[in-house]
């Protein structure tokens, strides 16, 4: 059984099913934290102790990171034990999942954000133009399913509105930051 991950629930009053799904998710989380903790500890122990510089041995750069690695390992172990006790290790028990529609929309939003911030910004395209493209396309792409759900298709008016908002916000933000407040833009 899959419980929606976006479902609002009060952690203080979970149903047994929700609690078990959360425990299963926490168990996986505990493994992740444990791996991170061990990696941080190993990297800290292997870190240069700057003996060639004759530094005070109590000031080696890896000291605090190693302690943090140990703290993460201990906390991850506690989380793991707790989620196991709460039934997180039961096979075929309830699991937290994002439903397909939400997952699709999320993937789309992340893709749009990455194309804009990694692909367009800072690679020669003027900021206002990159921003206008991102905002217009995002509005069109995100509103289309809503319009279809409401029983009508996306009209030219909707597209014109999206382009106007995109160009408007790109130009206004560029003007306010760059020209009015003298902030450098990517």
């Amino acid at each position: 059984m899959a419980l929606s991950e976006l479902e609002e629930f009060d952690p203080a009053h979970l149903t047994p099913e929700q609690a078990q799904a959360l425990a299963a998710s926490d168990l996986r989380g505990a493994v992740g934290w444990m791996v991170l903790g061990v990696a941080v500890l190993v990297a800290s122990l292997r870190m240069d102790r700057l003996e060639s510089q004759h530094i005070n041995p109590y000031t080696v750069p890896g000291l605090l990171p190693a302690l943090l690695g140990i703290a993460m390992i201990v906390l991850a172990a506690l989380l793991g034990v707790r989620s196991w006790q709460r039934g997180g290790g039961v096979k075929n028990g309830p699991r937290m999942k994002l439903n397909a529609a939400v997952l699709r929309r999320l993937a789309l939003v992340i893709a749009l954000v990455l194309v804009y911030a990694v692909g367009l910004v800072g690679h020669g395209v003027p900021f206002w133009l990159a921003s206008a493209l991102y905002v217009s396309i995002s509005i069109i792409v995100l509103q289309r399913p809503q319009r279809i759900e409401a029983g009508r298709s996306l009209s030219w008016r909707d597209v014109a509105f999206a382009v106007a908002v995109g160009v408007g916000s790109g130009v206004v933000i560029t003007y306010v930051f760059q020209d009015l407040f003298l902030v450098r833009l990517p």
Partner: protein
Amino acid sequence: MFSGLADLGQAYVGFLNPTSIALGLGGALLGIIVGILPGLSATLVIALLTTLTIKLPPSNAILVLICSYVGALYGGSRTAILLNIPGTAANAASCADGYALAQRGEAGRAIGIATSGAFTGTLFGVICLAAFTPSLAEVALSFGAYEFFWLALFGVTMSGTIVGNDPLKGWLMGALGLFVAQIGQEGLYAYDRFTFGWDELSGGFSLIPALVGAFGLAEILTTLADPAEKKLVELKDSVLPRFREVFQYWRTVLRSGVIGVLTGLLPGVGEDSGAWMSYAAAKATSKEKELFGKGSIDGLMAAETGDMASIPGHIIPCLALGIPGSAPSAVLMAAMIIHGIQPGPMMLIQHPHFVYEVVAMTSLATVTILIFGLFLVKPLLLILRIRRTVLMPVIFLLCTVGAFASASRLFDIYAMLVIGIGAFFLRRRGYQMAPFVLGLVLGPLLDKSLRRGLVLSDGSITPFFTRPISLAFAVVTIFAILLYVPAFKAAVRRVTGGAGAAARSLVRRRT
């Protein structure tokens, strides 16, 4: 004392010019707008405005930020009242009573109560800010590496314990924040930690891009993953502030003010704790307990006074100790550092007038919310009618600019993306961002204090536990962690329960 009053007077006069007033009003207005929008937080607006005001003179820049901080928390109450969704996390306690009043057709009255509670709460906090910051800084001047080590650890632990419902996850996030703060060049020998030869990582993760990711992008993803629009309750009656009710519920106002400031003093606890604790205290002592959650004016007044009083409360440790009280005050602290003012005990020596300037700024911010509470209530609510699918892409533009502008590094934009997407998935699983933020801020202080302390004691850890203030922080920190161990918690309950029963029987015998 008189020189202090003269400095304070001078600070007020310094801001009485058209530019400062216009900037203050602008900051408060933007804060209110962001506060009204559910999910977008005070942290985000301060982070974004830090980049916008980077070229302004320090006093005007910090004025804008403080006004936006106060504005955002105040603005959030309207969404709580009209939509039953807290505009910022701090307004969650106002939802039940505010929305119940709105459904009875008294939305304007609820907004009026929120305005008067917010005004009185902030003003009370400002008085405490002026009165206690210099003395706390004076005490902190005697702090050494051992005290700062425990103070940093205490902050992250308390934040993990109190914020959210799961201390274990809170501490893990705190440890993660402390670890992320260690990435890059360390302070003593300029040695690159965890950079794997990647030069960009030498500069480490800056606070502002991390915050914009954790509080901006994560929220954009949450909203756009499920962009359902909720219906607003219509506003029919007058929204004028109700100061008559402040007098009527003066006990609640005073109690919530004190609770707000005290929770503000605890590092990393957040404004929502101020609101919830004030609300709980008001419910416990109120004559109209049964009305709580069903439109109680006492409850709404307590929540709104408590969260607003905690703003100046959070600024006190930020200025006096260099330890921020909440995520928004962490950004405020970062902004002060960007503008060349290092908060902490030395600030009173290096910038003696700055504390008074902050007091003046916070008082001005209080006046600005009163102005916007009197006018512009209805037009500002139009912002809630804008569709999320239109608003959020524009907010992301601001996030990109905000992440980039403080250091002009493309790396900061990528850091914002990674932290934002990571924060979205972590939040879904019950991990809170506030301990992470505090860890990120306090990581360098913890590292430096630990190593300095060990050099001073020649490797002995005894001074970490024997100096009186260190011992006090150590006991509280370790106690907070041990409370998570069921056997220890049961033992504490037995002792406190036993002591409570003994005290009760003693009182009964006397009466």
